[in-house]
């Protein structure tokens, strides 16, 4: 049972809104549940206390008691306080002149430092920087090889010394190396260590003294529990951190402890690691994370992702093709690919409001998408452009070529033809008509994606031409509606 904080909050405030008016005791009672929810989300005990106190104080002091929509007001107060708790946003890294800027990464074992170094290097590269990765983890077996592999994948050089030198010397010499080789940002990957390990903490302090990194970032696993605060506090008191990177944020953890780190140390969260792929490092936006916690979805992130992947002109061309029904299977494939480039389906849909809880047990069929791609790729150009020509024999060939069933091929073609018709109709309709039409198709899912098979089953009934009489009626209806 996945009882995310967002679900907790939504059920909580649904109840609250149902009551019409809330009283002081309502607020306190609601906050009891918020308190439990926060504790279950691993928010640090002390932070929970102060957070709840602040919210209660604000709720009682403000006009929430007399307001008409107390539930909404409470959500807003909790939301604002939450944003304040985990914010403010500050994903900026500053750069020194003359270069190189030295960034030191540190953290506990297994928090994800090395992977994050790779991600950060890629991020900096995309910002036009020339990073250098430095393998200063001489502790863990093969850590240097791991960083070298990642550096290779990202396409940035790695500085390593394999002659058993200590991390302090390696870090010092790496900066000279960067200067001599025109690398403007140096990322030091230090070994994971426990904050109570005196010897290893002393080593970090020494690197700090000798190399004087311009920024020190603490890497924290988003799944940590209450102890996160202890370790962050220890790192901060010995190194004066500049910020925090939260990793493994793509799991279903609620990340409360990691978020408490900001409250306890006062250091901003700069980035989130959200996947195993190296591109999956996001700037931290407190309002979005708070929204996600409260179940308001993360539409902004989705829009941004879409903007990164979709060319606006391309999209316009697509729209035109759709309205003229010259949309081919090739176009469809192209769209599907750019959509998938944005990330796994589940992750994307999870960003939509309300989708998070609806999707909790759904397995989104990435495999089915793969199959769809394979089928389309097994078609000739002519078949892709006019699927009408695909007869039984061609279907068998396509099925054999893509390793699928003839039934899969038929379903795809049928679905595509229906979708194309529907899309053309939709493009000439008002919003309310679209809604009615979509409803008529049943729960077809995402148009043009895997649900197409089902759409094909339900839609043909809607495909009849309208008689002039019917058209006139519809027009009248539309006018009256306005």
């Amino acid at each position: 049972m996945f009882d995310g904080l967002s679900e907790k909050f939504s059920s909580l405030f649904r109840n609250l809104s149902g009551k019409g008016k809330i009283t002081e005791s309502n607020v306190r009672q609601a906050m009891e549940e918020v308190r439990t929810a926060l504790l279950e989300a691993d928010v640090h005990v002390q932070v929970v206390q102060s957070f709840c106190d602040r919210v209660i104080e604000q709720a009682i002091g403000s006009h929430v008691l007399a307001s008409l929509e107390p539930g909404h007001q409470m959500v807003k107060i909790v939301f604002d306080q939450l944003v304040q708790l985990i914010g403010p946003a500050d994903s900026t890294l500053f750069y020194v002149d003359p270069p190189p800027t030295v960034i030191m990464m540190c953290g506990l074992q297994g928090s994800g430092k090395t992977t994050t170094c790779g991600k950060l290097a890629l991020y900096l590269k995309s910002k036009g920087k020339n990073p250098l990765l430095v393998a200063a983890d001489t502790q863990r077996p093969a850590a240097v090889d791991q960083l070298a592999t990642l550096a290779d994948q990202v396409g940035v050089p790695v500085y390593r010394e394999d002659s058993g030198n200590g991390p302090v010397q390696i870090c010092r010499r790496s900066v000279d190396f960067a200067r001599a080789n025109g690398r403007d940002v140096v990322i030091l990957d230090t070994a994971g260590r426990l904050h109570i390990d005196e010897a290893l903490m002393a080593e970090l302090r020494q690197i700090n003294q000798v190399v004087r990194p311009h920024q020190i970032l603490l890497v924290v696993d988003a799944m940590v529990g209450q102890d996160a605060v202890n370790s962050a506090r220890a790192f901060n008191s010995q190194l004066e951190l500049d910020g925090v990177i939260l990793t493994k944020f793509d799991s279903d953890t609620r990340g409360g402890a990691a978020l408490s780190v900001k409250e306890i140390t006062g250091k901003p969260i700069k980035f989130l690691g959200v996947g195993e792929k190296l591109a999956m490092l996001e700037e931290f936006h407190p309002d979005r994370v708070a929204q996600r916690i409260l179940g308001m979805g993360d539409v902004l992130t989705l829009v941004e992702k879409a903007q990164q992947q979709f060319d606006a002109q391309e999209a316009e061309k697509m729209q035109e093709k759709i309205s003229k029904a010259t949309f081919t299977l090739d176009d469809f494939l192209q769209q599907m690919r750019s959509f998938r480039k944005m990330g796994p389906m589940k992750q994307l849909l999870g960003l939509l409001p309300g989708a998070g809880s609806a999707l909790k047990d759904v397995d989104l069929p990435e495999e089915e998408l793969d199959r769809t791609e394979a089928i389309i790729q097994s078609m000739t150009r002519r078949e892709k452009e006019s699927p009408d020509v695909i007869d039984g024999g061609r279907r068998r060939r396509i099925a054999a070529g893509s390793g699928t069933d003839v039934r899969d091929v038929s379903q795809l073609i049928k679905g595509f033809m229906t979708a194309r018709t529907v899309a053309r109709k939709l493009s000439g309709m008002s919003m309310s008509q679209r809604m009615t039409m979509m409803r008529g198709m049943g729960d077809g899912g995402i148009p043009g994606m895997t649900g197409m098979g089902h759409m094909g089953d339900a839609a043909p009934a809607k495909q009849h031409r309208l008689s002039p009489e019917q058209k006139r009626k519809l027009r009248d209806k539309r006018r009256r509606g306005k």
Partner: protein
Amino acid sequence: MAFGFLSKVLGQGLEKLRTGLDRTREAFLGSLKSLLRGRTLDPQLMSELRQRLLLADLGVAATDKIMTDLEAARKAGRVASGDDVLEFLKAEMKTYWPVESRELTFAAQGPTVILVAGINGAGKTTSIAKLSWYLKNRNKTVMVAACDTFRAAAVDQLTIWAGRIGVDIVKHQMGSDPAAVAFDACHAAKARGMDVLIVDTAGRLHTQDNLMRELEKIRRVIGKSIPNAPHESLLVLDATIGQNAIRQAVEFKKAVDLTGIFLAKLDGTAKGGIVVAIRHQLGLPVKFIGIGEKPDDIAAFSPDDFVEALFTESPAAG
């Protein structure tokens, strides 16, 4: 800090461990005693104990249950003072962990297969090194299988450990099918007459369905190669982990039918209290604890010491 576990378990091995940590342990036990000694079990102490449990990551549900039981015992007059509390809690915890369930299961014949899984960074590879060392010192012949073919240099990491400890390793290229590595390892273990085969797997988040299915497949392949294998499926949990560990345990149990937990990184200030909730909800026992970076930093789990450590205050917690 759970260092207290060790005293009984490791006995003479204790002096190997760093003296600095020994001192911390004394400090912890001292602080626990000072919290409880000479005090009556009043609402104030109850609330402090509750806070300790929450800080140890037991979670709200488990904490509430323990506090309810304690309250009931107090009302029944069985617990009156702070000094009684520890004994009560130890007894209560023992009901969570029956002794027999913590032993490793060995195959009656042929190699015993231990499948090791967990999320990224939990400490699987290091824990496997420790487990290999532990079993080797108990006169078992051990082979490890490098089925983490995904993470950069993971195979190298395990190879280095295998070399240091002196156990056999079966490995393929990076990026190859982990199930195929498992298959080869099973057959190699049989052919070479190994006592134990430990299978390392890539770290995976329990939310990644495709990777969880890959894990199921590895388990299936092992089961087909050696009857009744794997005899143990251990989930490696980082002691610092929070409430999300329950979700992890549920999902991994679904995929590979876990038999126990290896609680790693207990040498920090984290207490790993979440295993109480996991034991309670899923019946999964903790079999081993990891308490350092060296291969011999492993110990069998002791509920008594665990409880003591739960209530000790971390020096950094201030």
